[in-house]
């Protein structure tokens, strides 16, 4: 039975820069996928593009491609599928073209997938009755419309498969569903459609894509039972080898660290999932309760029996809007009574902030080392030698937050004995870009594919 090997060398923008190169070299891949776009990455890229029309894509990809190009020269069948295009897939593809030209491969076909960016049409769409109601609150987008910086539909695998059919060796997309980066190549290789007939196979590829989309998270990263011998320092990145019937294996290149076993795959199967029987993507509703996971070799898990649970006529839309400013700073407070002294220090800082005449919408004090992150109250006998005091604040007025960041340093001399850790200067103020999930009818969105 025909099989296709798809490896994911990048799970998010900021992931290990060597992983794509190592995976492409050792993974015996047909396809390398690289995933760069977290929920709010698009809004940051939108702001970059507004300042510079040539910006707005994941620039890490260009560095990675510079190192990948020589390997691609030796592996002419290797194709790359990435959402690094972000808010500006054309500029990303143009930069990729320059890299390949410098590497002596000027003729390599590059395709661009667009159509996800709804911002230029947002007012028309709203006027036409697309309310973009918030998925949790039901509120219409009109209530924050003036503050919206980006609105992107999560496109599916079909335009990726189309791009590959056109002969692309590199496919650069904007926002697509993460799993679709894997579904696209599988659908292309096996000639799957996206109607009722191939739904179970599309669901299987969706499970495969979901399992590998976060890179090392399925090969030992975050594994509850990871230990020294798991050798995360040399963790291999994942490869899904998908057969025509949808059965697939998850593995990693031989000789690498990390682990692929029932536990690592099962943990990742449910990662960021709500109802596992209904995992919505633009390609299919996959039923994550159907696959059977079997350890079939050292660091090999076979996944079989994936079933679909229907298909939707909507795309998910990720909207980001400006929502004020925030900052967070830390100090280290050593004991005895470090927990109480940290709490008192926070009270002193917040009192001085109040006396400065500024106000704030919200603040949050955490005594790290005493249960703050996980919500547990420190026990009465909890007396750690030192704790980290972290104070965060947000407000619609940037000046308030600027002032807040200036209240940390004075505690080094005017706070309690045992205060230290003010080493990196004032904490940075950043704009809050709030996330607004919505749906839009598929008929309102037109994915487009072009070779450059």
């Amino acid at each position, binding site marked *: 039975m025909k099989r296709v090997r798809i490896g994911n060398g990048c799970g998010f923008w900021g992931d290990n820069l060597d992983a794509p190169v190592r995976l492409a070299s050792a993974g015996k891949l047909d396809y390398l996928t690289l995933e760069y776009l977290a929920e709010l990455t698009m809004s940051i890229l939108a702001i970059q593009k507004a300042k510079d029309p040539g910006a707005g894509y994941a620039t890490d990809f260009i560095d990675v491609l510079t190192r990948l190009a020589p390997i691609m020269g030796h592996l002419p069948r290797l194709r790359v599928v990435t959402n690094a295009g972000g808010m500006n897939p054309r500029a990303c593809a143009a930069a990729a073209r320059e890299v390949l030209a410098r590497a002596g491969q000027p003729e390599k076909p590059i395709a661009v997938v667009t159509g996800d960016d709804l911002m230029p049409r947002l007012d028309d769409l709203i006027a036409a009755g697309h309310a973009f109601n918030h998925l949790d609150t039901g509120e219409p987008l009109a209530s924050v419309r003036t503050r919206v910086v980006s609105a992107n539909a999560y496109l599916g695998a079909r335009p990726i498969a189309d791009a590959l059919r056109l002969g692309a060796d590199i496919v650069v997309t904007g926002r697509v569903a993460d799993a679709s980066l894997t579904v696209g190549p599988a659908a292309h290789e096996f000639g799957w459609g996206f109607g009722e007939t191939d739904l179970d196979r599309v669901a299987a590829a969706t499970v495969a894509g979901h399992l590998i989309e976060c890179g090392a998270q399925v090969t030992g990263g975050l594994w509850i039972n990871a230990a020294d011998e798991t050798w995360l320092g040399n963790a291999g990145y994942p490869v899904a080898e998908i057969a025509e019937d949808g059965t697939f294996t998850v593995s990693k290149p031989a000789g690498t660290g990390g682990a692929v076993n*029932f536990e690592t795959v099962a943990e990742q199967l449910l990662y960021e999932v709500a109802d596992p*029987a209904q995992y919505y993507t633009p390609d299919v509703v996959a039923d994550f309760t159907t696959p059977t996971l079997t350890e079939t070799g050292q660091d090999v898990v076979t996944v079989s029996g994936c079933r679909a649970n229907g298909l939707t006529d909507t795309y998910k839309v990720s909207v980001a809007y400006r929502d004020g400013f925030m900052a967070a700073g830390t100090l280290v407070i050593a004991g005895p009574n470090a927990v109480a002294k940290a709490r008192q220090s926070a009270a002193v800082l917040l009192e001085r902030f109040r006396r400065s005449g500024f106000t704030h919408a919200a603040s949050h004090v955490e005594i790290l080392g005493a249960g703050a992150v996980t919500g547990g109250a420190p026990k009465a006998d909890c007396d750690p030698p030192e704790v980290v005091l972290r104070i965060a604040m947000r407000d619609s007025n940037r000046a308030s937050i600027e002032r807040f960041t200036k209240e940390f340093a004075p505690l080094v001399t005017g706070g309690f004995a045992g205060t230290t850790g003010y080493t990196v200067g004032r904490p940075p103020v950043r704009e809050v870009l709030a996330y607004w999930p919505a749906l839009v009818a598929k008929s309102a969105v037109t994915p487009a594919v072009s070779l450059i």
Partner: protein
Amino acid sequence: MKLPLSHIAHGRSGDKGNHANVAVLAYTDAGFALLREKLTAAVVESYFAPLGVTKVERFEAANVRGLNFLLHNVLAGGASGSLRTDTQGKTLAVTLLRMPVEVPADPSALVRPVVGERGT
């Protein structure tokens, strides 16, 4: 007799906007049966009350002996707007796995089988 949940199950957590999911996966079929009985949505909601959770839904994935909990509004604003350190719910699973669970006097059928004897 009580054991930490971590002796019976592994897990992982992550964010979904201002919600988070916590997957709890039993090591054995007997452990899964115990978790289905004891680890109710109400128990998890009460456990995470200090984080301001407003509602907990429980789903099952028997193929991985899993209970998947969706914790509503537990992230105080989510990845961008939350003032917390853990804006993405990364610590929720390991935190839940510290919860003491009442187990039979002989819990050997519940705990993680040693490597080599693990069925899948």
